[in-house]
């Protein structure tokens, strides 16, 4: 068995898998095994609990381990399989709630950029034009959470396992996470206390920089002067933080002109 561990390049893209071969990916805290047979794809995954500090790591290798040995495994049957497999990173299908390390006050008339790192999903597909999607897998199982003014009103979201940061350098670089710059503007005359932030990940596209770091467009949240409304603007271009960005994936849900008005308490709390 040839064993190949790759730390450069990217874990996503198009791959060719020979008949009756198993390939194992390790992407952050996820172990994924894909097996190709004459007329079926067998996909299995499980979380890796004993991660060391370097969970930026990702690797891909041939393996003898059968997908059946993992708990979450599913089979997809075709007339015949072509061997073409594509893995695409995706952002979460529900908004993600993240918190700063400690809540902070944004003074009246001020603005600040926060960097939010969110965990990704991966979509396994086969064939070409059109691709047949086999499965969408969360790289890290995020905890559910509720965001809204009461238990009657609000929406189900995922709780981020990491904090949002004021400095981009403080944010750990991870292969399985995407970074979103969030510009918050306080146009009111009062101080804005920021404890939790609702990042609408289903509305964001995904970009990759030349250093293989995944990014989303910048999100601008403006708290308007009057009323309890906040403007949510999503750029239609990659953030200017890094250079040579390429679009990897479109947003799950599209917003017409990239601007939304939402009740203030559905974005901040």
């Amino acid at each position: 068995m040839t064993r190949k561990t790759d730390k450069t390049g990217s874990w996503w893209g198009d791959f060719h898998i020979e008949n009756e071969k198993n390939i194992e990916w390790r992407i952050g805290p996820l172990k994924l095994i894909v097996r190709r047979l004459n007329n079926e794809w067998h996909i299995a995954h499980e979380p890796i609990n004993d991660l060391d500090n370097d969970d930026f790591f990702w690797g891909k290798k041939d393996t003898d381990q059968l997908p059946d040995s993992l708990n979450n495994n599913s089979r997809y049957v075709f007339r015949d399989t072509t061997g073409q497999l594509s893995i695409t990173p995706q952002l979460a299908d529900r908004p993600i709630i993240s918190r700063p390390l400690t809540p902070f006050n944004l003074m009246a008339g001020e603005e600040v950029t926060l960097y939010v790192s969110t965990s990704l999903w991966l979509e396994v597909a086969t064939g070409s034009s059109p691709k047949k999607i086999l499965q969408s897998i969360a790289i890290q199982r995020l905890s559910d959470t509720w965001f809204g003014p009461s238990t009657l009103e609000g929406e189900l979201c995922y709780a981020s396992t990491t904090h949002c940061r004021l400095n981009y350098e403080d944010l750990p670089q991870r292969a399985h996470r995407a970074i979103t710059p969030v510009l918050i503007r306080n146009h009111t005359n009062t101080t804005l206390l920021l404890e939790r932030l609702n990042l609408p990940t289903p509305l964001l596209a995904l970009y990759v920089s030349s250093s293989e770091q995944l990014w989303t467009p910048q999100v601008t949240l403006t708290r308007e002067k009057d009323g309890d409304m906040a403007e949510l603007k999503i750029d239609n271009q990659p953030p200017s933080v890094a250079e040579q960005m390429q679009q990897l994936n479109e947003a799950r849900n599209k917003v017409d002109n990239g601007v939304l008005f939402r009740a203030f308490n559905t974005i901040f709390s």
Partner: protein
Amino acid sequence: MNEFWIDIANFLSSEKIWGLTRAIILVVVGAVTAKLASSTLTKVAGKKIDSHRSMLLKRGTYYLIFILFLISALRELGFNLSVLLGAAGVFTVAIGFASQTSASNLISGLFLVAERPFTVGDIIRIGTTTGEVLSIDLLSVKLRTFDNLFVRLPNESLIKSEVTTLTRFPIRRLDIMVGVAYKEDLKNVRTVLDEVASKNPLCLEEPKPLYIFQGFGESSLDIQYSVWAKRENFLNLKNSMHEEIKNAFDECNIEIPFPHRTLYTGSATEPFPVQTVPNK
């Protein structure tokens, strides 16, 4: 023989036969029009109203139009409508007395439709019956219980009694009652419970888990620990949380006590004699 044919010819050319023909035509046209009108109306309103209301709208329109055509047909047949309606009034009173229960259910059904405490597909609990609503009809509500039994509940009893809709809101709270031994450090117990909740992905991070010290129980310190979950995950959370709490308590050597009984014979009596028996 000729007379017979003449009678037939006279009958066919008489007003009566034309009246009868007109009446039949009116009934047929009425049925078709009512069917068309009710279907069109349901299609137009289909997206704006739920399936139950659309069914009511369809039936209501159908019967209204059909009855109008039927009344016209009766007039064509020479019936005196005022007498007929009067008779119908008396008849209705008689029927009303005879079918009090059905009428009460019917009116309760209309109130249920207007109030909409639940819709088809919701899971409701009435008394000891819990199940999925299959249909809300004018006389009764039909449920499918989780052990796959078909339950028919008269609308009247639904209006009168307490009905809990389990699927109204997207999140639910699970109350876990747990007792720990008197020797345990409650601060530690609380930390362990919070850790279990934060590690379980089904347990919502917000609203935060609720910790209530319920009191000094007979043989344990009683604690209520309430966690929130997405409605669909409620049962999974119930199973996983109880299991994980038990495991975490075992790991941290926190005792979940069972009821203790100390037998005391009072100061006036001698202690109980205790004898040890060797294993055979």
